[in-house]
């Protein structure tokens, strides 16, 4: 048998075996993985968010290492600063809120605020959890803030997240979150982390 023919037959058979046997990811999973790729490229997001029934607030979120208990021991997580002075810190086993007290704050409000701000690490974790569990991901075209987008419906354990990504690059630009007792919408940009910002954030979490 000619060499080239045998090599082609083996290569084609190997490819065909994979293609014929293994299930393929859904369009929603591929889009969500692309969105997660964007989120892993950045450590900061900035935008505007609004919990339903409240006023819109500027938001700025960074991913980094923070001292959550004032012990000096750093833990990895996300820190959010809102326009009204509220600061939210979410590290591995700790969620802290600093700032002006709010009346009857729903239990999940701080977490939802982090998600609405587009905190890259947190949103990426949410997407990972859905992908790892192989939960179905709804996909449809719509528009947000007069921009055409693709909406991804992600069902996490606590909430339903509608993540809006640009149709061409799949970069996440907005999010709607519906959690028990609290919901809202946020639009954001993923931006590079500048020197000094982490220090400023860390000073807010003594």
């Amino acid at each position: 048998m000619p060499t080239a023919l045998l090599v082609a037959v083996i290569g084609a058979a190997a490819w065909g075996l994979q293609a014929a046997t293994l299930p393929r990811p859904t369009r929603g999973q591929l889009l969500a993985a692309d969105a997660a790729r964007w989120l892993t490229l950045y450590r900061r997001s900035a935008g505007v968010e609004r919990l339903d029934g409240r006023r819109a607030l500027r938001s700025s979120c960074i991913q980094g290492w923070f001292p959550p208990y004032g012990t000096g021991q750093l833990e990895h997580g996300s820190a959010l600063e809102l326009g009204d002075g509220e600061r939210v810190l979410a590290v591995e086993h700790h969620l802290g809120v600093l700032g002006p007290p709010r009346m009857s704050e729903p239990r999940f409000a701080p977490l939802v605020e982090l998600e609405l701000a587009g905190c890259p690490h947190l949103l990426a974790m949410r997407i990972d959890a859905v992908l790892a569990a192989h939960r179905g991901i709804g996909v449809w075209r719509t528009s947000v803030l007069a921009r055409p987008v693709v909406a991804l419906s992600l069902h996490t354990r606590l909430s339903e997240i509608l993540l809006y990504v640009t149709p061409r690059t799949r970069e996440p630009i907005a999010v709607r979150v519906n959690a028990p007792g609290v919901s809202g919408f946020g639009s954001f940009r993923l931006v590079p982390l500048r020197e000094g910002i982490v220090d400023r954030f860390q000073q807010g979490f003594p």
Partner: protein
Amino acid sequence: MTAETFVADRSSTRELATWIAARRELFAWWAGSRALVLGVALLGHFTRYPHGYFGRHAYAWRHAFGILGAWDGTWYRRIAQHGYLLVPGRQSDPAFFPLWPVILRLAHGLGISYLAAAIVLANACFLGAILVVDALGRRWLPAADARRAAVLLAVFPLGAVFSMAYPESLVLLLLAGATLAALDDRWLLAAACAGGAALARPEGVLVALPLAAVAWRRRRRGAALGAVLAPVAALVSFPLYLGQVLHDPGAWGRAEKAWGRSFRWDGVYRAFDTVPAMLRHNAWLTRDVVFFVVYLALLAVAYRAGVSRGWIAAGAGMVLLPLASGSLLSDGRFGLLAIPVYWGLAVAARDRRVHGVLLAVSLVLLAGVTLTIPSLFP
């Protein structure tokens, strides 16, 4: 049935019985060593000791032989169930080669659970591998050495992996089968086996070296050259497939990076440089360092004993190439596919007392490795 076919059937049955009787020792060691591994796994299931990294409600505890389906076995099962998906920046499944999950999915289609299919297939393939390694060894070594090598393979301490839901036993069978077929001038079979080996584990592509050595020595071209290149063709089909379904032909490399493995020019240096830090972090990793040294020493013994240079080069590649990813982690398992290691071990154990001690120590270590699967991934 005519008298002729009746006589022919009786004769083939007698031949099969003679064939099996000549290999009774191998069947016995395979059955004994696998009974030990499965028995210890069962003991671990009932005692849940040592707990290791497995949580109280871990999947591994839910099934009688669950610990044999743990670690990478979980990932292979996920691929068989759901296919590939690259999750950027996180450990994800394109790091694992496709043939084993393809076979698991086909077996599952017959109504067998993924875990049961994986354990039955792994152990059956291991029996096949022992028999083929015995036959292959006779081409380079005296029959007694070849037999001793096959027996030592059956009880090899890290050989618990050959009973796990891992593709290692399949790859070992295909590697040995490809070389044996080539030596018998059955190049199409050699090409199929070599292609299968490369589609199951990246080290499988190294079988091209012993096949090339046989083809070169016998001045064969055509199908022989095709068999030499078959593992490369099968290997290339994987990124092509990933490119088709994930739109990313480099998904394997990206997934490997998330697993802490990225191939760099200074990888081997980094692998040794990080050993002290690795050992401080987890003393169990001494195991991989010890096996790395043992493998290289046994390859040298096999080379001196006259084993094919092609196979020595392939074996050395299987032990050394993973180091280019900057880590010695799991090198003990990767080296299990370096068949000349067993031939080297057999030559080193020509003395009956040494052989006896090796068998006893290997069996104890085999039980120990199986018992500590929850604490230390293979």
